[in-house]
């Protein structure tokens, strides 16, 4: 009702995605028929976001809200409970792959299989909103899935040589990628960035990471960089959120991750 009145210049239905990877997913299906909005600023922390009124208004105005789940975008838990409009909680989709070691990890867009599931679900939701565009949407889905499959194979080939190279991560956000491509992750230092280490854990990490090629950290994870320094392994930045502006699709995001991990595995690539 009042949503349209507050936003008269948006003739196209909007899809609000919480973070950039989800926006990339939505964009590949939505094309020009929807306005896709990313709720979080490129580098904000989804764990502790304080919304502005405009953010809140965007949520209410959205035809579809695309998010991962209360375990990831905590600030959305309550608004989504109350929401009457369409929402797609990717974390609760059927038929997803979950990594064995950290079954609750919601960085699920790092696994091509999950990406495919998500794309399909998004197509269903968008079709419900704009039934007349069904054909176009289906075509976009098909081409997106094709591109994804190709990229997956290419990455598989690229990473094959490094399957046994041991490495560690600072905080457990890469499990889906690691699982999908069968990489040899020795350990994750912490589950969450805020978590503090125990002396025992530190001791064990130091022993088990003796042969690790690197510690993978997110951009801006200063504690991770410090940890790597103390443990005596190089820190390599890999960005699961694809913050870099040249990342414009989910496949380029996967590719950038691959490049990042190769930096870790291949000492010559590191500076």
């Amino acid at each position: 009702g009042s949503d349209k009145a507050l936003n008269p210049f948006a003739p196209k239905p909007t899809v609000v995605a919480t973070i950039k990877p989800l926006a990339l997913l939505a964009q590949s299906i939505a094309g020009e028929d929807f306005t896709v909005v990313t709720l979080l600023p490129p580098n904000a922390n989804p764990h502790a976001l304080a919304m502005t009124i405009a953010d809140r208004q965007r949520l209410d105005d959205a035809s579809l809200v695309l998010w991962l789940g209360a375990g990831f975008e905590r600030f959305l838990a309550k608004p989504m409970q109350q929401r009457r409009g369409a929402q797609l909680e990717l974390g609760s989709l059927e038929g997803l792959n979950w990594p064995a070691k950290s079954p609750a990890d919601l960085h699920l867009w790092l696994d091509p299989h999950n990406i495919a599931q998500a794309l399909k679900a998004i197509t269903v939701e968008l079709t419900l909103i704009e039934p007349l565009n069904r054909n176009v949407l289906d075509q976009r889905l098909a081409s997106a899935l094709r591109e994804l499959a190709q990229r997956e194979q290419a990455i598989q080939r690229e990473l094959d040589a490094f399957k046994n190279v041991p490495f560690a991560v600072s905080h457990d956000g890469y499990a889906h990628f690691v699982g999908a491509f069968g990489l040899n992750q020795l350990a994750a230092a912490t589950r969450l960035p805020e978590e503090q280490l125990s002396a025992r854990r530190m001791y064990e990490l130091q022993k088990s990471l003796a042969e690790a090629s690197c510690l993978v950290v997110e951009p801006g994870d200063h504690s991770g960089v410090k940890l790597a320094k103390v443990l005596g392994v190089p820190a390599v930045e890999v960005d699961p959120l694809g913050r870099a502006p040249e990342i414009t699709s989910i496949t380029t995001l996967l590719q950038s991750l691959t490049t990042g991990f190769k930096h870790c595995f291949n000492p010559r690539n590191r500076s």
Partner: protein
Amino acid sequence: MPDFLINALLAAFAIAAVAGPLGSFVVWQRLAYFGDTLAHGALLGVALGLFASINVTLAIVLCCMTLAGLLFLLQQKPSLGDDALLGLLSHSALAAGLVSVSLMGSSVDLFAYLFGDLLTTSRNDAYLIIAVCGAVLGLITVFWRKLLLMVIDADIAKVEGIPVNLMRILLLMAIAIVVAFAMRVVGVLLITAMLIVPAAASRRLTTSPEAMAAGAAIIGAGAVAAGMWASFYYNTPAGPSIVLAASGLFLLTLLKRRQ
């Protein structure tokens, strides 16, 4: 006006109304640290609530009330100042919360529980806040004179037959309950700041305790209105904007030279 804005304003005004008088007592009794202590206690509450698998809000409320009780007991030993006691409780509760999370290998990020957001208030949340704030406001009004006599001088009050200890625990519990309920709905920052900042601003303008309490409520309400407007106009987060608006009002009162 969109629904979420109505809910947010309802909750924020209710909090401003009760935070005025309650905050005045906080300032008089030097309990400014108490809000933070309760927030840290809430962390422990969440951890224990998950452990004992009881309702998390209930666990938080229980934990906050326990902290209020502990503070009351420690206050009976007069060798430490209130601020040091609160600091002690605050840090111990936070540390205990962090340790128990780690021990339980709990899968929730406890900090999330501390960051409510005013703009995500639902209508039911707003009603809950209004009910809690109304009840506490009623209690304070009923016991106003006794509470005030206790603040002025506990010894004289005691001799004159006022149940000083009861009043003290009533005050601590009232603060604990308001903070515990409001925290999850509107966020720790907003509720703890609303207790202190408007009362501090009002202190500089008024000459009677009643005026200070009422003034604090009015300044709080003004800060809510101004902060919400700023949040809309400058696209800033709502809670922090309200707090900044209140601080701005305090700065304005510094211009007043007298007293």
